[in-house]
């Protein structure tokens, strides 16, 4: 957690912040447009501010906006957000091997802040979990710095977007910068042939099943893609992959 001096005095904290800066302009533009979009959709500035500060999840907020303004039941809004956030649950399964070295309150207090970018940069910086406590401290310090700068930048940008909502036309589409940041992250993850297959199958399935309610298309896409990749792993393609 970034309030802990053991983390923010550690050199890895700074490295984590430096890495966040590589993607920051996209994240800030996305945060700004999420703030603008909430107010322009008809939410009060107070509600938009509360959502920004409490939810801290651009894709879930954007999915919730039309449901909120249409007066959808609360369970529909929460279930939709859960499906949109399913990718974080997948990330948490991977992060578990790093996290279990820490007590639960520490896991939860940093876990809340781990957005897409933070997960990808963290596992890139630390491909294997450390066995010793020095290495684990370095991991936690890096993750804290990486999450801290992303969080503070997102919050400032979103609040600015709420204030400037009347001045920034949504039609400009500046929010597309957030999609592009995720496209860059997808590219950085697609470094084996089967991962490219995974991307393609999941993308196609998510579009094909887009008509499902509650964003269940995301659940369908993950299941279909992992199943296809696990089957393909057994075939000759996997052998080529191993030898290339």
């Amino acid at each position: 957690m970034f309030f802990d001096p053991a983390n923010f005095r550690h050199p890895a904290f700074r490295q984590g912040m430096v890495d966040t800066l590589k993607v920051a302009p996209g994240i800030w533009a996305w945060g700004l447009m999420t703030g603008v979009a909430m107010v322009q959709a008809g939410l009060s500035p107070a509600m938009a501010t509360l959502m920004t500060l409490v939810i801290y999840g651009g894709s879930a907020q954007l999915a919730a906006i039309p449901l909120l303004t249409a007066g959808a039941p609360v369970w529909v809004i929460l279930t939709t957000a859960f499906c949109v956030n399913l990718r974080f649950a997948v990330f948490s399964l991977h992060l578990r091997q790093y996290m279990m070295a820490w007590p639960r309150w520490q896991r939860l207090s940093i876990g809340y802040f781990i957005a897409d970018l933070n997960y990808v940069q963290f596992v890139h910086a630390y491909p294997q979990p450390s066995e010793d406590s020095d290495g684990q401290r370095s991991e936690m310090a890096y993750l804290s710095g990486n999450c801290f700068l992303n969080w503070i930048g997102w919050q400032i940008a979103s609040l600015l977007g709420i204030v400037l909502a009347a001045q920034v036309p949504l039609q400009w589409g500046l929010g597309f910068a957030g999609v592009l940041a995720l496209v860059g992250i997808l590219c950085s993850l697609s470094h084996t042939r089967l991962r490219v297959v995974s991307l393609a199958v999941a993308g196609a399935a998510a579009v094909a099943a887009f008509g499902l309610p509650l964003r269940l298309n995301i659940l369908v896409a993950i299941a279909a893609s992992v199943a296809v990749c696990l089957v393909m792993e057994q075939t000759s393609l996997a052998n080529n992959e191993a030898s290339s």
Partner: protein
Amino acid sequence: MEWSEIFTAVGLGVITLVTRCFFFISDRALPFPSWAQRGLQYAPIAALAAVVVPEIVVSQGTLMTTWQDARLFGAAAGAGFYFYRRGKGQAVLGTIIVGMAVYLPLHVGWGW
């Protein structure tokens, strides 16, 4: 702001916490079959693609019917730059900047 709105916002905040911590909330050992271990190679990119790809190719609830959409060209230019630049640093930042440099003129200027 009504109580129901506050309740919904707080509920969504809880969803953020629960999904981001999902598999490390409990202290108990997690049975981890080998297929799940292997699936972890492919699940993160699939989960992200399932959110991102529709953002690029879906319009009004279905697959777009025209190729004249600035999102396609912006995303293609951004991804193209990434693979051109891969391994030389700042690839993701370049993806965002090159993608927006293609997207904005087409979208704002051309109206795609």
